[in-house]
Each structure stands twice: as structure tokens, then as C-alpha cells.
């Protein structure tokens, strides 16, 4: 029994040490973001500010328009999540519960698109958006990515478990199909909505390549694009860049910690279904 306890402490200690090593960059980022300009330029590296200051954050929000970038990121991610959940759950519902001609063909076609990487279509999508005047708009960021074969598949699998009789009896009561979807199916599919909602929000918030291509007007920048741009001009200002990273990462970390359970269960479900 004693030996087991010692073993347990030793293994736990190793894991805690590993976790500390993994998390050190985050700790350093947060601490450096509260330093005065130039304070981090020292050897050995500084892990604690002499005096906590909001200097960097003031520069970011007052001079460098990070609030605007934050609002852009938040708006794009929220709109994308709403659109994506609506469109994909509606399609998933049709595939799960309706018999119709071309059902198999359409569903297989959706799944087949997952084999082709998004970068392949990027050049023409850029041209199409340019033609439609949607470069530098939220919609230019949202519409090309709103439909996801993975989400449709996920919703379909989930909705297949909802008994069809439930829908049937609602129809007998004279409920329209859209109302059935809206008032019966969606509330029942809540776990799937939450999981895919977090996936979509996180994915959109963190996305870089597509916003980099679609946005070239700084008033429309999302946080990752703004940060990458800032890196071009302010790379020597370590403290400022660290503060910019904190502003970008923090909201998404809070969201993740709050909804960790649904996120991880979705992650795992995606892998087991393969």
C-alpha cells in the first residue's frame, strides 16, 4: 500500500511538471503583457513585472483599435455560429428523417467534399466574392464556410435517434414541418447544437488564412489578422505583442473552460464515428 502511494506521488509529480512546462509560455505571455515597454528584454528572462501596468493594453485599445478588431472577431464568430447551426441542422434534419429522391446522392456528395482541402477552392472563391462585392465584409467571411459536411453529418447522426413517431403525432396535430423542426427537433438536439456551436465559434475565432485573404481594409480586421499585421510593425515591442496575444486568446479560453464537457464529448464523438 505504501509503495503504491509513493508511486502515485512520483507519477503525479512527473505529470504536473510536464503540465507546467506546457503552460509556461502562457504564464510568460500574461506576465509580460503587464510589463513596461522594454522590461522583458533581459537575461535571464523575467517572469514577474516589477510593477503591474496596463500600459500595453492602453496602447492596444486606444491607439491600435483592438476594440474594433475584437468586435469584428466577435461579430463574425457569432454570426457564423448562428448561420452554420441553422443551415446544417436543417439539412441534417432532412437527411435524418425524410425519404426523398436523391437523398443518398446528395448526402454522399456532401461527405465527399471533406476529402478536398479548403485551399483548393480559395482562389476562385476570392474572385467570386470580389465579383459580388463581398470582400472586406462579414458575409465574405461567413458564407463560404457556413455549410460544413461534418456538421450536417453530426446533426444527422444525432437526429436519427429522435423517434419519428414524435414528429408524426405533431403533424397529425397540424403542425407545419418547419415548426416541427423549430419547436420539437431543435430543443431535442440541444447537446448537438451546443457542441457544434463551440466548434464553430472557436474555429471561426481562431481562423487566420481565410480572413487574411478576404480582408485588406484594417477596419474589418479580425483579431488574428490584426495581430499578424501588428507583428509586422511592432515585433520588437514584446510586451505589446504579448498583450495582443492575451486579448486574442483569453475570450476563447474562457469559453472553452466554461463549456469544456460538451466540447470534448463532441471531439471524441467525431473520432469514434469514423
Amino acid at each position, binding site marked *: 500500500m505504501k509503495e503504491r502511494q509513493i508511486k502515485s506521488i512520483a507519477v503525479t509529480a512527473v505529470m504536473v511538471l510536464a503540465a507546467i512546462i506546457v503552460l509556461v509560455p502562457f504564464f510568460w505571455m500574461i506576465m509580460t503583457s503587464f510589463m513596461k515597454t522594454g522590461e522583458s528584454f533581459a537575461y535571464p528572462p523575467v517572469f514577474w513585472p516589477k510593477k503591474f501596468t496596463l500600459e500595453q493594453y492602453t496602447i492596444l485599445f486606444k491607439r491600435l483599435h483592438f476594440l474594433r478588431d475584437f468586435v469584428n472577431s466577435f461579430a463574425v464568430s457569432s454570426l457564423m455560429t448562428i448561420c452554420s447551426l441553422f443551415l446544417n441542422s436543417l*439539412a441534417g434534419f432532412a*437527411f435524418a428523417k425524410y425519404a426523398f429522391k436523391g437523398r443518398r446522392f446528395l448526402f454522399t456528395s456532401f461527405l465527399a467534399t471533406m476529402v*478536398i482541402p479548403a485551399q483548393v477552392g480559395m482562389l476562385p472563391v476570392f474572385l467570386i466574392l470580389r465579383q459580388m462585392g463581398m470582400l472586406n465584409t462579414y458575409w465574405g467571411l461567413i458564407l463560404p464556410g457556413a*455549410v460544413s459536411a461534418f456538421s450536417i453529418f453530426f446533426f444527422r447522426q444525432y437526429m436519427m435517434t429522435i423517434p419519428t413517431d414524435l414528429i408524426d403525432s405533431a403533424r397529425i396535430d397540424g403542425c407545419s414541418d418547419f415548426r416541427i423542426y423549430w419547436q420539437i427537433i431543435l430543443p431535442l438536439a440541444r447537446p448537438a447544437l451546443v457542441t457544434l456551436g463551440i466548434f464553430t465559434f472557436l474555429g471561426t475565432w481562431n481562423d487566420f488564412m481565410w480572413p487574411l485573404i478576404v480582408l485588406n481594409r484594417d477596419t474589418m480586421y479580425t483579431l488574428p489578422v490584426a495581430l499578424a499585421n501588428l*507583428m509586422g510593425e511592432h515585433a520588437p515591442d514584446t510586451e505589446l505583442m504579448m498583450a495582443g496575444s492575451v486579448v486574442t486568446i483569453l475570450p476563447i479560453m474562457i469559453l472553452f473552460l466554461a463549456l469544456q464537457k460538451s466540447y470534448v464529448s463532441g471531439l*471524441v464523438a467525431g473520432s469514434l464515428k469514423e
Partner: protein
Amino acid sequence: MAKKTHKEVMQDRNGLLSQSSVPYIFVAPSVVLLTVFFVIPVITAFLMSFTDFDIYSLANLHFARFTGLQNYTNLFSDPVFWKAMFNTFYFLVIGAPLTIFAALTAAVMLNSKLVRFKSILRAGFFAPVVATLVAVSVVWKYVYDPHFGLLNYALSFFGVSSHDWLSNPLWAMPAIIVFAVWKNFGYTMMIFLAGLQTIPETLYEAAEIDGAGPMQRFWRITVPMLAPTTLFVTVVTLIGYLQLFAEPYIMTDGGPVDSTLSIVLLMYRQGFRYWQMGYAASLAFVLAAVIFVLTMIEMKIQGETRTA
């Protein structure tokens, strides 16, 4: 909305609802968006890869001419393309096994009954996965800084002299690989953890009674039982790593001397900086072909293990 009689709302044999137009209306928005923003663009990109579509064509489509296989022959005779191809595979061949190995180690240890604070540790290892790639790339650029970076400081305890990691053509790619392992292993770890939970405890108990040591149990039970999971994470990791982009974009801009230039970064440059869109499209299709081949190999292996 008119009331429906019972006859109209019957289910078919598979428990599916029969309705003439409703399902089409429900899938229509998705089909339209996917057609406009995926199917048509992919076909267009394919056609584009056989043209000299460039900045003049951007002004007026009629300037684009069909040039046959010109882009592809140019590509295959361009040393920069081969450099990018080499770099991408260097990243992949070293980075993917390291990521999977780190993930498996962490998962097996976290699964052990001996470890405490499991949920906190798991969240800690997973944090880099959730963090915005661009932001952590910025942070790691400073981790690698030759003057005040954390890496040089940590290595100094082991007697390793200071390096300017990202400015050295020899070390820039290994630095990006280490960063990528840090960023991604938590995801794979989560999948492995789920896989480990499906292995019945009785297998280990039986093996223990038969006198199998911990190493034997790991190699004879854990590894074979995790084979399908491993195959899945391998494919996901390979496909993800083939699309290496933001890390070199932020940390090195593909340099020094193209030592971290990846296929997607080259495509981005050719397509959206130099507007050589025909050329960039051919690059995109080379990438797609590689991913397609990898996926096919995966499906074949999966099929074989299933019949075996």
C-alpha cells in the same frame, strides 16, 4: 397551413417521413452555398490551373489563356516548389510521429490510476489546442528569441549554448516542429484517452494474472487495441500538417532562405501576393492530390484491418 389527414403523414418502412417538397426546401440553402462556394470554385480552380491567369486577368478575365500543362511543368521544374515540398514533408515526417508519440504517452499516463488531479492536467495539456494559432505563434517567436527567449534559458541548464533558432536555416524547421507538437498533441491525447477507455479492464487483469509486466501489457494489449484510433489520428494529423501555413507565416515568413516555406505558404504567396493565380491553382491541386492519396491509403489499411 392546411391541416393534414393521417394518410398524408405516414412513415415508410425505414421510419422516414414522406413529404414531396419539404426536405428539398430544407437542404436547398446548404446545397446552394456548397455549390457556389465549393463545387464551382474547385472546378474553376482545376480549369484555372491550365491557364496563365495572373494580375492582368484579374482586371479582365479575357486576358487569361489556356496554356495546357504549362503551370505543372513549370512547377515541377521550379526548385522553390521542390524546396516547399521537401519542407512540408520534413515537417510532416518528423512532426506527426512526435505529436502522436507525445499524445500517446500523455494519454496512457493520464489513464493510469496512479495519477491524481486528472481533469486539471488534461485541461492543461489541452489548452494549447484551443489557443489561437496566430497568437501562440507570436508568443513562441519570443520563446525562441536569442536574447531573452525561454528556450535558450531552459537549455542553458543543460550546458547548451545560445542559438538564434528561427534565423538559422538548419534550426528554423525543427523549432517550428517543436512548436507544432506543443500546439497539437493535446487534441490527439483526448482521442487516445477516449480510445483507452474502450479497452476492457478485464484484459489487463487477465494478463496480470498470467504474469505480464507493465511493458508487456502496454505492447500486447494497449497498442493493438488502440490500432484503429491510431490510424484515425495519424490521418488527421498528416492532413492537418500538410496544410502548414500560419506558423511559418508568423514566425519566419518562410525563411531563412526558404527553409520553412511550406506548400500552402507558397500557394498563398503566388496566388494572393504575386497574383499568379493559374500557377497557384496548380499548386493547390498538387496538395489536393497528396491529401487524396493519403486518404485512400488510410481507407485501404482500414479495410484490410477490418477483414483481417
